[in-house]
């Protein structure tokens, strides 16, 4: 569990230099390019999404992994049809979604709706 957590925070750390790199390129007068898409992990542990808020470049893929003995879901807020909607994630199950559009995307677990998270796509 803690190993996976480290993986998640590592992935978030990797996204940061990518963003800085794009900014630096622009400053140097290169043709402006968006940050490269990243692959980022979110760990579900003890009825919480970690990290609960995530900022990623457009095109990034987020993978949620359930480390609880209780099932969870990952479902975007708002009316149907949902932007993304996992099935029941049992222990160690994964769900992956790629964010192609910029914006702020809130989501929750429909089984335990107190569990909430946000993905900010830039």
């Amino acid at each position, binding site marked *: 569990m803690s190993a996976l957590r480290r993986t998640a925070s590592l992935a978030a750390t990797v996204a940061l230099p990518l963003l800085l790199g794009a900014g630096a390129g622009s400053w140097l007068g290169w043709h402006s390019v968006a940050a490269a898409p990243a692959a980022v992990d979110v760990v579900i542990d*003890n*009825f919480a999404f970690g990290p609960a808020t995530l900022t990623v470049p457009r095109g990034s893929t987020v993978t949620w992994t359930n480390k609880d*003995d209780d099932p969870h879901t990952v479902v975007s807020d708002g009316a149907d049809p949902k932007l993304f909607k996992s099935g029941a994630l049992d222990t160690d199950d994964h769900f992956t979604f790629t964010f192609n559009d910029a914006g702020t995307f809130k989501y*929750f677990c*429909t089984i*335990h709706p*107190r569990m909430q998270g946000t993905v900010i796509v830039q």
Partner: protein
Amino acid sequence: MAVEMKSQQLHPGRRKLLKCMMAGSAGVLWSVVGGVPTPFSLAGEAFAATGDFTFMQISDTHIGFKAAANPDPAGTLKDALAKVGTVKPSLLLHTGDVSHLTKPEEFEMAAQIMKLAGLETHYVPGEHDTINDNGKSFFERFGHDKRTEGGWYSFDQGGVHFVGLVNVVNLRPGGLGYLGPDQLAWLTADLKGKTASTPIVVFAHMPLWTVSAAWGWGTDDAAPAIEQLKRFGSATVLNGHIHQVIQKVEGNVKLQTAYSTAFPQAAPDTPGAGPGPLKVAAEQLKSVLGVRRVDVVRDKGVTLTDATLAA
């Protein structure tokens, strides 16, 4: 010895009963109810029905659960139904989380095991029974009572008005359990014609009061439902979800959560713990699982007796 045995039979304390068991050789003891001796089995004695009308509740069977907290929830459900069988209740309520993951094979296995009880059984869904389909597959299998589009219903038996509510679908981000305006309006209409002396039994999966907001143990709009129960002389609310027995009394309204038959959970808001399955030593498991007997005595009220599977 014979005289002493008789007095023990009339007031059978558990310890005396055990002594009696050791001293005697009979597999059946006799109890005197209204002057008429009736036999009962030793295993069921401490848990025998006492009311004019007795029914039982089981909850959170979680068929399909496989983790360490209980690798065999089917086995412990069978144990629970054996305990129910010793009481011979008039009916059985299942307050939800029949399955662990809303899977067809879990519903099938649960239905096969529940048949072993041979009892009229009324169900309401838990949030584990309605994952991603708002209860459609659950109601197809266990919804013979379904009288409304949303799945809530009522019926009368043994002089009691039973109301089964659904507070686990259309849950909202950041919220707790949810009844919704349609169900609350239906409840108002359903209770309207009932006299204040009618015993009311409401059953729903999630607690109809907030046991722990942080752990999601409550129902957002329970208050208007409870308010409607306050005019009755006896109103009992039976819930599951939190896998332990916790009671709340509001005037004549008695609310009580039930044991699971599958695995325990930590006491609400225990530091360092969470609302998930709690692993206990294998030899202790049955002492934290259980069933509930409900005895209705005319003009006196309703008593709840919770018994563990180890008792």
